[in-house]
């Protein structure tokens, strides 16, 4: 049996789920309402939907999705800028696939491509560097989207471009770091969360220790976990135990097969070497201090912003879009008036309906019933 199959064993899963239901019942008695946990990471959101966990725990505990889908938290203005790069003569925009369909204020990369912009999907920034090398007559602008997980690869692509002496490769970075967003959540007086499920991949880079403030400063129990069904059920079990124990909140590592206390030191060094921390705007949160990464001055020549400075109109936010509140865990997709009505995967209004890791896309795909087909 493959090791991962153990993490999907339905027998073990059902047994653990019964325990979770029982503890959730006790937590409900204690709180006077079902406990509310947030899965911060988009990949967890999809895993929860795919396993049908929300329905299985309906009425016992509530799972909210958080700001951990990098595409979803990309601000309108940033997407408008990506579109603006695509409209510059001689520029090819390279991107991870998820970004292509996300609507900006007025259009998306997908629509711009249909109108003639050269938009190319790459699986890795290294492939975009290779493309730039093979197409010296075009300027390749790679869209650096993602958290601590994708930023090191983008940093290395800059190093690669410099080593190759490429003058036609640059990156538009909208990279973000996760902990400040968790601070923003923790200090929001309207937030009513009883615990956090922390992202596995980001934690692999930054380490368990980086989250201690969640328990220490906000009194929130938190668990880092992996992406298999059992990982998630196990994390719920741990959070409930913490809730019921009455002891101080802790940040636990339930993903020790991947995540270390100190994280991936080499990746952290790469981030420190290439990026400096800045204040950036997150969709739904506004500006979060110290939550963004931009290239340091010594690499600024590879920064597409300074190379091209495209003109970007003032962003327009579509009326009624609640993606922002959703990313803060203030509502579920079903509570958004646009969900499955004006906003669908074929005609998305907000990013949460577009990204494969967006909460609304996951809900729409796996958790929605239609009235008549």
């Amino acid at each position, binding site marked *: 049996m493959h090791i991962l199959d153990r993490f999907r064993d339905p027998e073990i899963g059902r047994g653990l789920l019964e325990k979770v239901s029982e503890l959730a019942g006790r937590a409900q008695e204690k709180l006077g309402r079902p406990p509310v946990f947030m899965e911060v990471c988009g990949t967890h959101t999809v895993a929860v939907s795919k396993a*049908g966990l929300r329905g299985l725990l309906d009425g016992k505990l509530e799972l909210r999705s958080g700001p951990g889908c990098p595409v979803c938290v990309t601000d309108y203005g940033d997407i408008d800028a990506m579109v603006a790069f695509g409209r510059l003569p001689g520029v090819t925009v390279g991107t*991870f696939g998820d970004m292509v369909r996300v609507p900006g204020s007025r259009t998306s990369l997908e629509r711009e491509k249909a109108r003639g912009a050269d938009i190319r999907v790459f699986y890795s920034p290294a492939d975009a560097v290779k493309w730039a090398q093979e197409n010296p007559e075009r300027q390749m602008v790679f869209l650096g989207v993602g958290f601590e997980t994708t930023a090191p690869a983008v940093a290395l692509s800059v190093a690669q471009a410099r080593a190759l002496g490429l003058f036609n490769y640059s990156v538009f970075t909208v990279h973000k770091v996760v902990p400040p967003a968790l601070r923003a959540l923790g200090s929001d007086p309207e937030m009513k969360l009883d615990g956090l499920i922390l992202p596995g991949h980001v934690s692999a880079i930054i380490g368990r220790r980086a989250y201690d403030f969640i328990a220490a400063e906000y009194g929130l129990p938190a668990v880092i976990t992996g992406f298999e069904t059992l990982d998630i059920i196990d994390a719920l079990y741990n959070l409930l135990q913490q809730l019921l124990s009455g002891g101080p909140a802790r940040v636990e590592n339930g993903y020790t097969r991947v995540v270390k206390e100190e994280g991936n030191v080499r990746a952290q060094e790469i981030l420190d070497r290439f990026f400096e921390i800045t204040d950036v705007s997150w969709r739904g949160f506004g500006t979060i201090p110290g939550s963004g990464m931009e290239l340091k001055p010594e690499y600024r020549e590879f920064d597409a912003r300074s190379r091209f400075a495209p003109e970007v109109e003032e962003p327009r936010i579509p009326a009624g879009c609640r993606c922002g509140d959703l990313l803060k865990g203030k509502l579920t997709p079903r509570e958004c008036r646009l969900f499955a009505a004006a906003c669908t995967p074929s005609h998305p209004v907000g990013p949460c309906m577009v990204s494969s890791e967006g909460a609304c896309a996951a809900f729409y795909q796996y958790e929605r019933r239609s009235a008549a087909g």
Partner: protein
Amino acid sequence: MPNNEEIVLLAHGDGGRLTHELVTGLFLRHLGNRTLAAMTDAAAFPVGEGRMAVTTDSFVIDPPFFPGGDIGKLAVCGTVNDLAVSGAEPRYLTAAFLIEEGFPLAGLERVVASMAAACRDAGIEIVAGDTKVVGRGQLDRIFINTTGVGVIPPGVDLGYHRIAPGDRILVNGNMGDHGMAVLAAREGFGFGDRLVSDCASLHRITGRLLAGLEGVKLMRDLTRGGLATSAKEIAASSAVDLWLGETDIPVGAGVKGAAEMLGVDPLYLANEGKFLAVVAPGEAEQALALMRADELGREARIIGEVKAGAGNVFLKTALGGTKYLDLLAGAPLPRIC
């Protein structure tokens, strides 16, 4: 025999000498049959008893050559399968080639030879054809359009109108092989030949079912959008719910692993040698046995059943949860973190 240097020129499509050479020296050499060799403006052929079935399809696959097949084999199998799942015995095909100037003649020969092999395998003939060559950049390498003609024998009646609660849903094997093989070949993921398209003609296995059973209500080939999309279309068109068991749906280990890595769902990936059959409950086990007796049905499974409802598709997860499946929206994109 074209050597490796020779390419398709605009002149190959101008109706003159080069066109003639291409038609006789390449197309007729591989696809030759009496009807085609007559070189008339229209093919004439006898039509037997029953109803005639006609289908048309265009093939624009990128890349044109992939593990397990190429655009030529795909064009034949894809068209045959549309006829097969309609209950028709495939008889004749037409093939129109749209070629970008500069496409290697050796590549064209490879495509035509594989069409010929697929036709021989299926026992059908290409009876009419056309070739157009367009300038560089006006299309991507090679496109093929086909029309397929088949005959539905008297007594065969397939359709949404026959589907009823209680019917069982069967598939003839693993889901997502073609979509994943092509995605991997296109993006150069280096999975090697571990991911192979399932491109194959299904008319023999569908014929077995129809010949042996009265209770086959509907068949669908699970191409673009995969099993999930076809299931949703069937549910919506028949105003019933389909309940599928996640653990009953066969997915090969290679596709499963690659799909997880890329964040795509095998149930939404295209197949080119897989079909779904809705069968009366009393005949489901027999249908399964008939499928498994065919080389294209060794991995066949009963994956679910029809219930009264309103056009939903539900997937029971291994844990006992329920997921909802919908039409594919947009191309499946990889995850970014």
